[in-house]
């Protein structure tokens, strides 16, 4: 007859004095219980993880794979030919548009990478190109929401929220999921939301600069005075706890103040890149106007990841080249190439790349046929992303599109497969990371998803 709610489970499981019972949560997500001070406490994975954390470099708008990471000699050859019938889904009236930029083999692996990414190309042997990506929807908002939450038709928790729910954070002083400067349209907060998962797991949105986190600073009081004030608060809390025994939530309040107090100093420090040495700043391109903006975000991402944040997302907007492809794409790549390469080499030098999964890509790619003389349409049926570090095999290309780069045909990787693979790298079985809501168990991958085992290093 008894059917315990999560809340009851929390009470029951905590032995009088425990705290927000992780047992309650962990029985749901299938991960072992680790009684800890808060729901963000680090938890062990289902099986040994290759990656401990994720940095997602989201290129919003649908970057063209034809000019970046999907080399197609056939498309060069057929430049200007009628597209009709050349690949499934070709528009009859359009002409094929050969890649606007050249490719060359890079690294020992000889991975073909475009001249637009000279710095990233230096890391060719660490890259695992995902050339057979495909997704359900060719419109920006839907595809973006799909990429971030695995669902378009329903409001669902974001990938970062699921991961934080599954694994907690690695830092005692920081939240588990941070998104830097996210896009406010195309789904907005839904892309880093927690939906029905507890609100703790939603992404903390940060801007740029020292005051990037809400309420993180107190402009009224000196640290010593604030500590004194907090001592009063905590003393009141403890006396309440004595009066009302058997209330683990109250203990949670006490803990939350201590974490908040520490966060006030830890978080701005992590976000403050001003004291990074010039060599590091140059590496991320902070010394040049073109790369300064995105470089700052990448550097902040590295600092956050290093400090223990489980999932960091960085967003670069403006990859939607319906026209002016040549110039705009070159500009985007110029803004991001150096910072991304800087991030990869910095992570590597710090020994972080081996257990940090770096993911690059947009919500879809672009058509092999042109839209006008210098543009490309959306293409959700075949595009590219890449992974690096975090236990993926470097110097390889996984999956392929047809000879013109139109449609994924080999080792196709759907968004659900991408999610399953990311979770797998983190040591999570995507079919077992579940949350019970409205009477059924939900997953990031719904009822889909297959791990791309060949990308595992």
């Amino acid at each position: 007859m008894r059917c315990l709610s999560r809340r009851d489970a929390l009470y029951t499981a905590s032995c009088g004095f425990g705290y927000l019972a992780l047992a309650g949560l962990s029985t749901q997500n299938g991960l072992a219980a680790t009684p800890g001070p808060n729901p963000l406490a680090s938890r062990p994975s289902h099986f040994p993880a290759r990656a401990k954390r994720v940095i997602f470099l989201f290129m919003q708008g649908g970057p063209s794979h034809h000019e970046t990471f999907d080399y197609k000699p056939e498309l060069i050859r057929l430049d200007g030919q009628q597209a009709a019938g050349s690949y499934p889904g070709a528009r009859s009236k359009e002409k094929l548009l050969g890649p606007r930029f050249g490719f060359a083999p890079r690294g020992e692996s000889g991975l073909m990478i475009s001249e637009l990414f000279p710095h990233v190309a230096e890391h060719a042997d660490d890259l695992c190109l995902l050339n057979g990506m495909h997704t359900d929807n060719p419109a920006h908002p839907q595809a973006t929401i799909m990429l971030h939450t695995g669902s378009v038709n329903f409001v669902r928790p974001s990938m970062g929220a699921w991961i934080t729910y599954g694994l907690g954070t690695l830092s005692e002083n920081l939240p588990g999921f941070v998104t830097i400067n996210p896009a406010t349209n195309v789904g907005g907060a839904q892309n880093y939301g927690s939906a029905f998962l507890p609100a703790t797991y939603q992404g903390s949105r940060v801007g740029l600069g020292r005051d990037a986190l809400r309420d993180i600073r107190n402009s009224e009081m000196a640290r010593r005075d604030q500590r004194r004030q907090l001592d009063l608060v905590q003393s009141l809390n403890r006396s309440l706890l004595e009066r009302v025994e058997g209330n683990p939530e109250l203990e949670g309040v006490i803990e939350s103040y201590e974490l908040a107090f520490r966060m006030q100093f830890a978080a701005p420090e992590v976000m403050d890149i001003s004291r990074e040495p010039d060599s590091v700043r140059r590496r991320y391109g902070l010394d040049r106007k073109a790369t300064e903006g995105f470089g700052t975000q990448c550097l902040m991402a590295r600092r956050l990841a290093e400090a223990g944040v489980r999932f960091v997302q960085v967003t670069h907007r403006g990859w939607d080249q319906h026209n002016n492809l040549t110039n705009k794409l070159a500009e985007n790549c110029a803004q991001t190439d150096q910072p991304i390469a800087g991030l990869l080499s910095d992570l590597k030098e710090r020994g972080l790349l081996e257990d940090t999964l770096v993911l690059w890509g947009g919500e879809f790619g672009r058509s092999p046929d042109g839209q006008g003389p210098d543009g490309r349409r959306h293409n959700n049926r075949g595009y590219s992303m890449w992974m690096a570090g975090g236990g993926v095999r470097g110097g390889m290309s996984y999956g392929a599109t047809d000879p013109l780069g139109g449609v994924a045909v080999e080792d196709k990787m759907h968004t659900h497969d991408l999610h399953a693979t990311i979770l797998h790298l983190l040591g999570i079985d995507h079919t077992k990371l579940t949350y019970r809501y409205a009477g059924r168990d939900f997953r990031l991958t719904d009822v889909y998803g297959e791990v791309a085992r060949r990308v595992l290093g």
Partner: protein
Amino acid sequence: MISGAGGSEVPRGWSGPRLSAWFSTGLRHIECIPMIQRRFACLKRCGWAVSCWLGAVVLGGVGLGGAETAEDIAYFEKHIRPLFAEHCYQCHSTEAESLKGGLLLDSREGWEKGGESGEAVVPGEPEESLLLRAVTYGDPDLQMPPKYQLPEDAVAKLKRWIAIGAPDPREGAAAIAELRYDPEAARAFWAFIPPGSTEVPAVQDRAWARDPLDQYILSALEARSLRPVGDADRVKLLRRVTFDLTGLPPSPEEIARFAGDPRNDDEALAAVAGRLLASEQFGERWGRHWLDVVRFAESMGRTRNIPFPFAWRYRDYVIDAFNQDKPFDRFLVEQVAGDLLAASSPLERREALVATGLLALGSLDLNEGNREQFLMDRVDEQIDTVTRSFTALTVSCARCHDHKFDPVPTEDYYAMAGIFRSTELLGGYRSRRGGNGRDYFDPSLLVSLPGGETAPEGATEMLQDLDERRKEIEQQLQRTRTRQQRLNRMIQASSREVERPARAASAAGRPARVGSAQRAANPRAELRDLRQKQRELQIEAEDLRTRQAALLGDVAMGVREAGKMENCRVNIRGEVNNRGEEIPRGFLTLIGPSGAPEISKGTSGRLELAQWLASPQHPLTARVMVNRIWQHLFGSGLVQTVDNFGETGSRPTHPELLDHLALRFIEERWSVKAMVRAMVLSRTYRLDSAHDPAAYAADPGNVLRWRMAPRRLEAEAIRDALLMAGGELDLRRPEGSPVNRMGEREINRIGGPVEEASDRPVRSVYLPILRDHLPHMLEIFDFAHPSQVTGQRDVTTVSTQALYFMNNPFVVERARAVAAATAGLRDSAGARVSGIYLRVLGREPGEEDLGQALDFLRNGEKSGGDPWAPFVQALFASAEFRYLQ
């Protein structure tokens, strides 16, 4: 072992060569082995009769598909079976880990029956066969295998196989386990049995109970040899009941009055409850609970987050309904079908129309370019909201398949879908692909309200201006239309005799004029210009209409009957282009009162649906609502999963009490206030939050209600209490909503009107609720997710909440206000500390509290600042401030 098993059970009549082919191909593919084993196991079970029959069929050469020669069968065995096994069985066999698309390819019957998309193979007709379509990758929506395309020769073999009549010797039933329900079992589930009256249980301690509900609680405790803890003291009780009924703290005067009331607890509490129930703040508190349930918001969210300028009308309607104590059955019917109710006055009509806003407030994907998909998603959203909020059933699960847990066949879902399909949405928006924010607004799709209010101040002149402009536009439009007709005629004429009009014009020695001129130099160009002008005028006219409507405020979101009433066809797997059987409009067949009203022709059936839901015979409606009320007063529901009374939901902790309350609710004309009053005046409600080791050991979750468990206040109550403490809260209801003044644009910038409005000293229920841009404060304190039915909010304890109290300027300001408001109590520091305690925590400080406070204040003064505001802030930050005991 395998061959052994086979060898002993080879049915008579199987010819040698065929059998060996069967094995050699079968054994090459590991997937086949279990199948073989099972097949023989089956034969073993069924015995000789079946085997003989099978043998006879094959031997006789009749075959199931007609004349299948040994040669044909051999072709299948040699080419097709291995191909199926290698490329298809992983997803399309009885051994598949999860069967995809309901299609089995490991038996003849499997493909004959086909999957969810229909028959897979039409023997003899390769072009008609879905299977071939899938493997040729010609159709982007149907490509199999999904990961790669079959080699050309494999496709050619399949084609040939189908062409020769798809010979296939594999017998056996395709084992698609169809989920059907046993009506008897369905009706036996506790929640689907109508509530029955029970005798109020006897208890040992007869003096304890105040209300029959107490006897149910006490008898369950006594059965476990437990005792409830004592009553809460009056000060605690007043704070509890004031927050619970109004969402606000009691004032120091109210505390003094109640503490000093010479009457006994029963009478004193009844007087307080009466006062609170009669206050306007009751509806603001309880209306908000309902707004959580119906995922109220003032913007669309998701792909195109446009504001809902008139959603506030629904919000105010809900608040008023709770204040008027509108019977809940009436409340329900109005929200589902208010537009179809007869009204005795324009005011009543207005209310009923606004009520249907419930159906228009959902979060939809406005970017959905496929009209049918948008329509069915909208219908789904409506079904989900209506069934979960009123009956705590997850009917939406049956959109793609029969409900896996509750007896809701997918046909029932589409019966209901027909009702909402026949209902037109009037939300003021439309879906489309692309375009900028304002393209998604459509003010013509709103409900215009009768009875009219007087225009707000200053609006009259503006309205007149708009009206004049509108008339001008109409005239201009009329002129363009006349001219257009004329031009069209000219073009028709000139297509017969091309040059004439222009020549005629030049012959007359004057240039062709545009406008009222009879002739035009270039009628096509002029027509183009005119069309352009017409579009501009139409857009301006539309804008004017919205601006007028907004000025008048005489529109609301809602629904009306669609122009065409239509039944819905089943969407197989929930896919809108995959249509099955047409289902007549109706309700659930296995849950709910039988003898549901007939849906008359020419109506959507919404009114009948509403009446069916609001029926006293409905097993869920009353139970679900009393359970919601109980939860808000006692911290958790008698059924803990308040939005899910189905199989996967929890079972009631006190089933008889739940039924007792449900029946009482119906008897007392569905009065929410009467139910709230009864619960608040019960003895159970008065229990202290004190700890009791014995009771805790036996029932740590307080399932039996041996005490009142402490509860965290909701975000709104915390914010309102912050404002109330310094006497800053303005209790008047603000006019409309700031969202009303945002204009036609997409919301993609954080801050702006939301942040500005959040600082206004109005009750939090009136803050703008934009999806994805909730006021910061509400969001961090677990505000209900405004896109989803949320009967029960989360309670999280996270450091962002701590940071809010420590650093947020709003809190700092409120602390200053309290310090200023108590600055007059300077006689002694102790008096001022007491004054602050009463305002912030609703109680006097104890001795220890006072000592601590004075220490803090002394030290603060020493370090040079005014310590009073920081002291108040510390009390705000304490757990006690945000918990009800």
